[in-house]
């Protein structure tokens, strides 16, 4: 192993980082698609040149032979290029999958540890009163729910990536849907010292959407707004319509998203530095799923944010016609 590493460290090709990916995947040079591609290229050139010289010596029309060889070589060269590209893509997908499993497992560990330790307390007879027992069993329940949420989110992510998230769009009263979520979120908001309000015109057209899936998006945006607002303030959910779309916005006066990290905000597992400083619990999957749902419902999602001042998320849904 150590020898292997030394070899990699001393090898010129590794040094110039030409085959960095192969090194990352722990592949030897002869297993490395880009190296094999380079070798094929060199062999092709050698074959072309030598065929030309041999043809020059033994045939009357060496140019035709050379042209045929060049055509065949170019074809082989392009073919091998596409094969190596394919290998690279597979390797990349595999690497992403490994990272995904690693992050997901790590995120499951916290609630798993919490369940393990609480059961330890119960098993070791450390909890005597029924009231305490009930408190600790509730903690197990909370951790269990957290794991279920995480696993469901992971399954949603996997469905999105496999293109298997299915939507059942139907005529939906978006006002009623938003109102229901705001009412259900009121206790969570109150516990975090923020208030929730809703603003909508008197009449609002129905939208064409999958109500169950779009509720996940609205719930996620409202939950984020509550979680990342630290001081007593108001979160406003507004609805408005134009001729084609209904626009829903969720505005908070929370911690905001740092400018430099705004481009990553819809990437899965991404959590910005400033929220990691305040709220370490979170998966970084919510907005990735939210965007996939909105786009799957033929809408658009975007945001405006300033660190320290707050964030407004917007999304649109097509009007039912």
């Amino acid at each position, binding site marked *: 192993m150590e020898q292997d590493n030394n070899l990699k460290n001393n090898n010129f090709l590794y040094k110039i980082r030409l085959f960095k990916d192969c090194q990352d995947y722990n592949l030897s040079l002869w297993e490395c698609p880009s190296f094999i591609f380079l070798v094929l290229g060199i062999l092709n050139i050698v074959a072309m040149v030598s065929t030309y010289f041999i043809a020059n010596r033994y045939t009357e029309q060496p140019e035709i032979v050379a042209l045929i060889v060049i055509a065949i070589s170019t074809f082989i060269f392009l073919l091998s290029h596409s094969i190596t590209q394919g290998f690279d893509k597979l390797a990349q997908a595999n690497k992403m999958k490994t990272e995904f499993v690693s992050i997901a497992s790590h995120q499951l560990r916290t609630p*798993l540890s919490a369940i393990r330790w609480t059961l330890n307390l119960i098993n070791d007879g450390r909890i005597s009163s029924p009231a305490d027992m009930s408190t600790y069993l509730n903690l197990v329940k909370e951790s269990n729910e957290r794991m279920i949420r995480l696993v469901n989110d992971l399954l949603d992510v996997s469905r999105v990536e496999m293109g298997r998230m299915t939507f059942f769009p139907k005529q939906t009263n978006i006002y009623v849907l938003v109102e229901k979520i705001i009412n259900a979120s009121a206790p969570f908001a109150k516990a975090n010292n923020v208030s929730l309000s809703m603003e909508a015109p008197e009449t609002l057209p129905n939208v064409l959407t999958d109500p169950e899936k779009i509720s996940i998006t609205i719930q996620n945006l409202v939950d984020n707004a509550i979680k990342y607002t630290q001081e007593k303030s108001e979160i406003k959910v507004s609805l408005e319509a134009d001729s084609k779309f209904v626009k829903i916005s969720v505005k908070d006066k929370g911690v905001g998203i740092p400018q430099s990290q705004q481009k990553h905000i819809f990437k899965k597992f991404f959590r910005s530095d400033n929220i990691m400083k305040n709220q370490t619990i979170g998966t970084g999957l919510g907005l990735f799923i939210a965007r996939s749902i909105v786009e799957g419902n033929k809408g658009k999602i975007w945001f405006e944010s300033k660190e320290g001042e707050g964030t407004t998320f917007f999304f649109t849904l097509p009007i039912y016609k």
Partner: protein
Amino acid sequence: MKTILIIEDEPTLQKTMSLALTQEGYDVKNALDGEIGLKLAKEIKPDLILLDLILPKIDGFEALEDLKNNDITKEIPIIVLTNLESTQEIERALVMGATTYLVKANYDLKDIIQKIKETLK
């Protein structure tokens, strides 16, 4: 009575560990983030610190560095108790002066208490 400071932001983990250690006869203090953890460590000068790594405000590595560079706290044994377990993180914490590095999910409470007792001997 020996004092143990638990710097842990996950309420259930903090609560369970705290109860078990109190029942073992330790005086347990809790901090839910790195900032309060550092402040408490300097104030009460505990006999041992259980330190999580992913923490709000000041993370575990920053806290560890601060604790080991401060005359009041540099001799206090620190057990890093986390769910991160890459080789780099383990090495980094041990090089920075942590006494032991334990992965929460891999240990029962009684095993961690055993390690604490061994460290405090």
